[in-house]
């Protein structure tokens, strides 16, 4: 494939040869700092995902100085806006001339950045978005699996919908329910992917014996959920699931309680990721459950600093005065992978070489092993997607009103310890 960038590079190189000063090239390249671009949603509604950015960048700068590596990080804010994410990625590539791009946090950030990098021929490592919205969402025709193509420069590690399905049904199997599930799927990238009747979560739930009631896509920031509550009640749903933004889940949960609808389990992604959002629910947040991608009890250590998950979480709390959250581990791991790639690459400024180096990664990070070896991933995405472990957790209210995330199901990743059993909502 001839990309604009490769064309410019090859013409520039031949121009230099013609100018008979080709010898200067390699020497320059060696002295040049290696530039890494990092795009994340530092402001706007997704800012919670980027909370650990300053902490992680601090650590990274310190480690790079200690290792004597000449690495510069160009940090860009997506402002939680996909268009802006694409713009700043373009800027980082063209004006700042980064050699490697890192991107994290929701398909709204990872997809536009990865698409720009793929087009420009700049290697990109991406995380914190389920792999289906990442891989399928960037295809020209997401509806036609035959047309899907692997990426040359985009590499992603996280979990997928199949892991969420396994974790959710494992948790529900611990309870005695009628196996009727009500689904809250909004009209956004995540909601459409999860709610798709063919490739969403419903077929997976059905395979585990659960029937899904899906009243349809609703608009985010909705003020009224009585239609959904009525539909769930009519179907006698004892479980509620979905991928809901925090304000909407609060509205739904209060309305459900006001209208006397209290399911035995409410297992939702996104809405109750952060302790602050659960605390906002007061007593009604007790025993809400969700998927857990990282916790301070995960049995992993950092390849950069040697810290354990607990050390990293405590370090963050000390640095910022705030409770630990799941994204901390993943932002840290992104820079672990980047460092590993830079160290292993023959020439960290050569895009093709770096892409090959990324593909050959096999690194134990703070979020588990990262290796693009195709394990557990369908063949069409094997080249670009790596999966990290996912378990299930439940928020437990403490005596002082704060919440603690207890891991209640680890059948999907037995090396991550559980802290209790799944409990019914009362």
């Amino acid at each position, binding site marked *: 494939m001839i990309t604009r960038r490769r064309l410019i590079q090859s013409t520039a190189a031949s121009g230099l040869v013609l100018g008979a000063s080709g010898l200067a090239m390699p020497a320059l390249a060696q002295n040049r700092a290696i530039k890494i671009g990092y795009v994340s949603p530092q*402001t*706007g*509604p*997704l*800012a*919670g995902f980027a909370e650990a950015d300053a902490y992680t960048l601090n650590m990274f700068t310190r480690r790079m100085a200690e290792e004597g590596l000449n690495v510069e990080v160009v940090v860009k804010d997506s402002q939680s806006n996909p268009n802006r994410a694409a713009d700043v990625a373009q800027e980082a590539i063209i004006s700042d001339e980064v050699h490697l791009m890192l991107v994290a946090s929701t398909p709204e950030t990872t997809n536009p950045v990865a698409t720009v990098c793929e087009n420009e021929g700049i290697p990109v490592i991406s995380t914190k978005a389920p792999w289906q919205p990442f891989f399928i969402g960037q295809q020209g025709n997401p509806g036609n699996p035959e047309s899907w193509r692997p990426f040359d420069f985009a590499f992603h590690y996280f979990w997928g919908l199949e892991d969420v399905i396994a974790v959710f049904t494992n948790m529900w199997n611990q309870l005695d329910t009628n196996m009727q599930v009500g689904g809250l799927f909004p*009209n956004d990238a995540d909601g459409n992917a999860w709610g798709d009747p063919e490739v969403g979560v419903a077929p997976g739930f059905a395979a585990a014996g659960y029937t899904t009631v899906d*009243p*349809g*896509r*609703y*608009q985010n*920031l*909705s*003020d*009224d959920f*009585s*239609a*959904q509550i*009525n539909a769930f009640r*009519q179907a006698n749903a004892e479980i509620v699931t979905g991928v809901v933004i*925090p*304000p*909407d889940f*609060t*509205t739904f949960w*209060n*309305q459900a*309680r*006001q*209208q*006397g609808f209290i399911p035995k389990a409410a297992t939702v992604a996104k809405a109750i990721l*952060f302790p*602050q*959002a659960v605390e*906002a*629910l*007061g007593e*009604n947040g007790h025993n809400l459950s969700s998927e857990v991608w990282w916790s301070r009890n995960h049995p992993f250590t950092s390849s950069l600093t040697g810290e354990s998950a607990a050390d990293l979480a405590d370090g963050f709390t000390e640095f910022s005065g705030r409770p630990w959250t799941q994204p901390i581990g993943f932002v840290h791991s992104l820079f672990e992978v980047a460092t590993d790639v830079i160290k292993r690459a023959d020439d960290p400024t050569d895009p093709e070489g770096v892409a090959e180096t990324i593909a050959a990664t096999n690194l134990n990070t703070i979020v588990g092993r990262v290796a693009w070896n195709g394990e557990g991933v369908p063949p069409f995405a094997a080249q670009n997607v790596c999966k990290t472990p996912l378990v299930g957790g439940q928020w437990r209210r403490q005596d002082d009103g704060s919440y603690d995330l207890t891991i209640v199901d680890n059948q999907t990743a037995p090396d991550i310890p559980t802290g209790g059993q799944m409990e019914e909502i009362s």
Partner: protein
Amino acid sequence: MMWIDTLVQGVLLGGLYALFAAGLSLVFGIMRLVNLAHGDLIVLGAYVILIIVSALGLNPFLAALVALPIMFTIGWVLQRVVLNRVLGEDILPPLLVTFGLSVVIQNALMQGYSADSQRLRPGPIESASLDLGVVTVGVMPLLTFASAVVVIVALNQLFYRTALGRAFRATSDDPVTAQLMGIKPASVFAMATGIAMIVVTIAAMYLGMRANFDPTIGPARLIYAFEAVIIGGLGSLWGTLVGGVIIGVAQTVGAAINLEWQILAGHVAFLVVLAFRPRGLFPRAND
């Protein structure tokens, strides 16, 4: 039975929209000022209440009472120092200024309180419900609707029974003649914005108790408020309540048929009203 429930929930939702819209209606009715920062001012009000709740440990209802004079002052100063300077024949400057204000408020709140979801927690009442036989309604939505009615009644009393109300109406109808009668539009406008901010505070309290809020959610609430004002007829406060209820019912009925029609149904109701009554249902004056 389900349809009665849908209707009742829609009417109660309409109360919330009417509360969002009442302040907007008041300001527009008196000084023809379209306040694009209205949604952000509601969010600002929610943060003011939140600060009082966390500083004094008060219940959100009491904290809102404490917040009332603060918000009144903010509104008064805002009108006196900023908005009065841009009011005039041209409607563009106030639009631009309030748009800018919206950006400023959002970013100032973001700076001070980060993008975290916040919430006002009133205690057990938030999930309390009343069984009315045919339907079960939440106490909080019922209180919201009742407050919307009380706010509208109180504003109407103020408008039609007090000297200040006469000044409001006179300035709205003909500022030049009102000035001849010894009314200073600048201070009348400042009072009006102050009072609008009192309504904003009440709306903020219910918004903050109903769902999470963060610095950026203001504008999403603005569109329904605008539609409620326009459906009701510019300057008519009862019209604003009716407009809110129409949008609320249209949304819940639309959602009951198909969830994807929820938001669309509200907008369609708005367009239908505009098609048949371009000046709204209860336009106050011919201007």
